[in-house]
């Protein structure tokens, strides 16, 4: 049953992403993308990563996408209909590259022997936290400093003269 759920959610993710790519207005693209992220979060939960799923919703769909919306609305890009949507001339390199990369990845993956299908192992929150703060403690500190840098940079870039 979980398998069916997985495939369903996968379908939702893909359709959502597809609609996001081909949307003509940026706001609609972002909303479609939020949908896609929700279903992706559920897939994470199915794969035994509850914490990552929670963070996906809170940080990704909740903060980053909202930030996108803020900026789009702030920029006041004028009539959305007049945004330059890509014509066929712009799509064909994209489709070509899509086909090439997808094809290569499939061929590469098919060449390797498949891992034994023993089912997924769930990683508990406790295991996750222990691993994070014990082995990757330094990484946490660095990431926090990195966020500080980003904050300073964003403040500097956005200041008014």
């Amino acid at each position, binding site marked *: 049953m979980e398998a069916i759920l997985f495939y369903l959610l996968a379908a939702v993710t893909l359709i959502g992403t597809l609609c996001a790519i081909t949307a003509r207005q940026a706001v609609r693209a972002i909303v479609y993308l939020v949908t896609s992220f929700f279903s992706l979060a559920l897939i994470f939960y199915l794969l035994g990563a509850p914490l990552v799923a929670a963070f996906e919703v809170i940080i990704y769909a909740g903060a980053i996408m909202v930030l996108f919306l803020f900026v789009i609305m702030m920029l006041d890009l004028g009539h959305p209909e007049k945004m330059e949507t890509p014509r066929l001339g712009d799509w064909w*390199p994209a489709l070509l590259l899509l086909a090439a*990369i997808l094809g*290569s990845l499939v061929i590469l993956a098919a060449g390797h022997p498949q891992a034994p299908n023993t089912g997924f192992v769930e990683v508990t929150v406790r295991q996750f936290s222990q691993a994070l703060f014990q082995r990757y403690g330094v990484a946490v500190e660095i990431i926090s400093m990195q966020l500080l840098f980003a904050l300073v940079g964003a403040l500097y870039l956005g200041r008014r003269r």
Partner: protein
Amino acid sequence: MTTYLSLMLLFPLLGGAFIALFGRVLPRRLVEALACAAVWGSFACAALAALAYDAPHKVELARWVTAFDLAIPLSLYIDPLSLALAVMIGFVCGLIHVYSVFYMADEAGYARFFALLNLFVFAMLTLVLAENLVLLYLGWEGVGFCSYLLIGFWYTDKANADAGRKAFITTRIGDTALVIAIAWLFQLFGTLSISRLNGMAFLVPGGIITAIGLLFLVGAMGKSAQVPLMVWLPDAMAGPTPVSAMIHAATMVTAGVYLLARMFPLIGGSAVVTAAIAVTGGVTAFYGASCALAQRDLKRVLAFSTISQIGYMMLGVGAGAVTAATFHLLVHAFFKALLFLGAGCVISALHHEQDIFKMGGLRRTLPLTFWPFLAGAACLAGLPLTGGFFSKDGILAALWLKGSALYFGLYLLGLATALLTAFYSFRMVYLVFFGANGHPVSGEGGLRAMQLVLVPLALLGLFGGVLNLPAYLGGGFLDGFFAHLAGGTTPEGSRMEEIALQGVAGVLALAGLLGAHLRYGGAAREARLKEAALPATPLTAFLLNGWYFDRLYHACLIRPYQALSGVLWQDVDEGVIDDTLDRLAAGLGTSGSWLGRWSTGRVSLYLLSFAAGGALILGYLAWLSL
């Protein structure tokens, strides 16, 4: 004997080298004395060698080239032919060296001049004394080289440099034929020693002998200015007069005749070759005499006269009479050098005026030049009892006694040429020396010395006949001397035939003198002077321009060659080679700037390139794993 021969060569060689290296820092008198001493020393050695001579003699001086089966030692060969020429060369060149001390007294480049004169004597003696063909060729090339430098002695004037180059390139054609013949002989016989080659004529079929003989003939044609390679000699008069006297009258131009005489045992057996030599000589003799009739420049008259007289020598060799040809060679050297040196006296006395129609009356103002010059002209014309008469008659007798139709025709041609020769030589004398005295003469001290040099030559020319008197007058010294050479024995006709032949030749010479007197002597001279101021008739122009051979060669050879080199230069060298490289470079530049259009500064393009690159790498990896 070895000492005499090696010293004979060493004196001029060392003299020339020394003067070339140090001549400019030494005092002038010392350089001139050294040059003259070198050549007179060489003559002394030749004379001593002649006194000590008993039989043909081979002298090996040193090893020169030894590689595999090619052995060319530095060896000299002394026999009557080379001894006679060596003595003549030493004497005549010695006199000319003394003459040029005074003639070139104003010349600043005297060191170069005397060095080249000495080196020329060395090369000529090497040519004459050489025992193997390669050493002969060394001398051959040496005289050609010295001649080129001496013709173009005043090289700052382009016409002189052009004349030097013309001489060099025209004789080069003959030299090529000579080199081919030498190489062929080596391939046939494995040796290049003249004395051995001359004994091997019977070993190869007649066709090969004919071919080799014709190649030698072409070589001789170039060096001795025979038709068709004679175009360089009239232009070579651009050089100083002593050079013309020495090189282009007495020595270098006779080298071709000497070569043929030397190799006569090898090539004389082929009737085709001897006929070709005789025909070449006959045609050239007539050509030279006819052109000399119309010349206005004093030295050019003498140049064409030289061409004609060497034609006579070739006739002699072609008729198989090497003795007669050599006799004429020796006597011609004396009187032609005399005529050239006399012309030099006249020219320098008249401040370098060379047009005979502007001269006159010098009989009274330059008597010391007039009488030797007259003697020389008489020898040239072949007036009875002069040296020139006996030598020319020897050749004509040999032609008559040969008997075949071809040689009879050539005999008649020789007679006609003799008539013309007498005519033009006295035309020259009348125009230059007779007539009213209207021309200023500058008598310098040097002029007297120059004129004195003419005297011994005049005596030798006039009395040179004693060298080879015909049989009814006591027998020839040269006949006996050359008796052992191939072709040395002269055919003996009956006494009546000889006297008749000499009578005919003498009558023709006197007829020529009479004709010249009628046309150019006395009152008729003024009429001729007036005629000379008018534009020339077509016949005169034809003869004046040497039968338009220069124009023929220019149209047939030089213009196509220039067109070809123009094509090769502009279309091939610049068009194909240069332009290919230029276009290659430009193409690289264009492709570079075309590639440079990739950096547009637009992020969209960079992003696309980035993604495409990644797709390529992934695709390659996937393809590898297939």
